[in-house]
């Protein structure tokens, strides 16, 4: 991406999808900062990125759930990375819907991580990029955010909120030269889907990472990965609620 390389901050960088997005960015010439809760694991991923791509890679701790820490975290990022031009928000947590039904308090954690935490950190990023008049925001949402399903509606509802936040940010920032990309992955082959019933056509996180960066390059607004999920979700959204509530999936 000529003229817009700089440092890309990847939040929740231990997930396979985030790792391979960072890899694809590094191959394009970006420097990378990997952030997440598990610093030990981040260091391994950083070492690997450096060896495979030759990029400059740093690691920082980020506690998404600790909302109070976001402002300070963001200030440190801005202080330490002059050319911060891109934020990829890739953290998320699904949990077990059954467990949340049994112990409703558990739902709060899922809501906090997937909506509140993702939203607040991106509010900071938005302000910064708006002032800089350049930047990229990439939010990894989910097709689960398009319709509430009995099997993961708490996660889905938080992702729905996140998708709308990204859409609003895009509308606000487009005149400032800031691109906002909403990524809606279908089933990706990670621990979230491993061994689960009803999972089909799972995508390799390596390919997903490449496709996210490709969508960035093409300045897309919203991308379904793999692409056929656009059609699947169109069909799912078109089912009348009367019918939908009786469907099992």
């Amino acid at each position: 991406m000529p003229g817009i390389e700089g440092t890309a901050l990847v939040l929740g960088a231990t997930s396979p999808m985030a790792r391979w997005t960072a890899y694809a960015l590094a191959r394009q010439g970006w420097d990378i900062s990997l952030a997440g809760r598990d610093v030990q694991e981040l260091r391994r991923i950083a070492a690997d990125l450096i060896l495979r791509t030759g990029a400059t890679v740093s690691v920082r701790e980020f506690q998404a759930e600790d909302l109070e820490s976001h402002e300070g975290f963001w200030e440190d990022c801005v202080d330490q990375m002059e050319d911060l031009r891109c934020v990829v928000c890739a953290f998320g947590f699904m949990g077990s819907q059954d467990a949340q039904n049994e112990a409703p308090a558990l739902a709060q954690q899922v809501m906090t991580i997937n909506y509140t935490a993702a939203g607040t950190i991106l509010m900071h990023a938005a302000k910064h990029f708006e002032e800089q008049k350049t930047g990229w925001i990439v939010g990894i949402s989910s097709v689960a955010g398009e319709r509430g399903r009995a099997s993961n509606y708490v996660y889905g509802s938080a992702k729905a909120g996140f998708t709308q936040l990204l859409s609003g940010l895009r509308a606000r920032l487009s005149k400032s030269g800031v691109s906002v990309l909403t990524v809606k992955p279908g089933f990706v082959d990670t621990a979230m889907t491993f061994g689960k019933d009803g999972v089909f056509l799972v995508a390799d996180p390596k390919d997903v990472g490449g496709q996210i960066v490709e969508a960035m390059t093409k300045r897309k607004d919203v991308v379904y990965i793999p692409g056929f999920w656009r059609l699947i979700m169109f069909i799912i959204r078109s089912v009348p609620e009367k019918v939908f509530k009786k469907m099992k999936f």
Partner: protein
Amino acid sequence: MHPEPSRSLPEKAAPSLTGWGGSPAGPTTLLRPEKMRDFKPGESPQIARGMGRGYGDAAICGEGHTVLTERLDRMLSFDDETGVLRAEAGVSLADILTTFVPRGWFLPVTPGTKFCSLGGCLAADVHGKNHHVDGAFSQHVTSARIIPADGAERIISPDKNSDLFWATAGGMGLTGFITEVSLKLKKIETSWMAVKHTPTKDLDQTLDFLAIDDAENPYSVAWIDCLATGEKLGRSVVMNGRHAAIGEIPLRENNKLDGSFSKQKPMPFYLPSFVLNKFTVKAFNSLFNLRQGSRGEFVTKFDPYFYPLDGIKNWGRMYGKKGFVQHQCVLPHESARDGLRAILELVTESGRASFLAVLKKFGPEGRGMLSFPTGGYTLALDFANKPGLDEFHDRLDGIVLNAGGRVYLVKDSRMKADSLPYMYPRLDEFRKVLRQYDPSGKFASDLSRRLNIAGD
């Protein structure tokens, strides 16, 4: 703050996981850690599985956990001075080549497929076409890390915890989970190979040719025409090779150190088994002789040279849906000539087609307690899984035992337990180490149970 989300790994039922040969194997439950800290032995019987390129049942734990290492594939450090790469056990040879060939480094030892993991290469102590010069894989491993049954990670090397190191090299995953491997890469000037093909007229000539100590060509292997009989029995194309120097390669820009691979061509469907009869193989082999043999000396890319089968996706399908078995043995020098002749005669008599028949000379035995390579000649044969294969296999093993040889465990799926102590004389030493590090037998595979590797 909330407690950390649970780290217990999701399970995936695998009712019919198989080895690379595709012969059916037992039901197992898969685990796939994505973080290093989740790669820890549990209580149930378990075995690690790399890229599943072992042909038989070594990387399957029936009625237990088969733990996939494919997500533990981070390279951790590289020393430009010594060439030592430290990486997680799930890193594939293919990824190492892609990353390091452009920088002028190559694998010190490589098997005939690049789609295998560092952990799998150490656990099987794999060999390459340069064994007679450079020894087996473990000889180039400067150190490794392993988590045995007690859950405590240890550094192992020829100097440190050396008993555990030499039990792990060739130990088929039974000593624990290998988490990291440090491998000493070797320098290359170009990514190209200078190759010499020489056709031979019979087995004696083939062996004589392989026996020549050709210091210039560290790689050598013979492809046998499996259907040549009588006087022509054992006729081959002997393929010698070495890394090409800069002056020898075709002059095109930027191709001096090219880490890319050839495009894979798919084998889109299972061939019905009747297609793979003697005649197909005959045709294939004579074509092969013609095409490759007549070229004599030439320069080629490293990928087709080292990994010809990687070029065909799902090539195992050639053998039909029931899969195939590979039989690889090594026979010591004294008995190799007669033993190999007996095996080749048995194969011809049986009319069983072997698409692949590779013969190679091994250098002296390494220090791995259950390592396969030992001084002599090794022969690898593929057979479609057709009726009568068991008896046929037993007869092959009989010849190997009589000759004082051994069968390669990572390729085996049919050997009998009685044969093991004769083939692997250091078995007791290996069992002693196992009793120390895994007294209650937490690590097990279909292979280890079938052959009673751990002992009673």
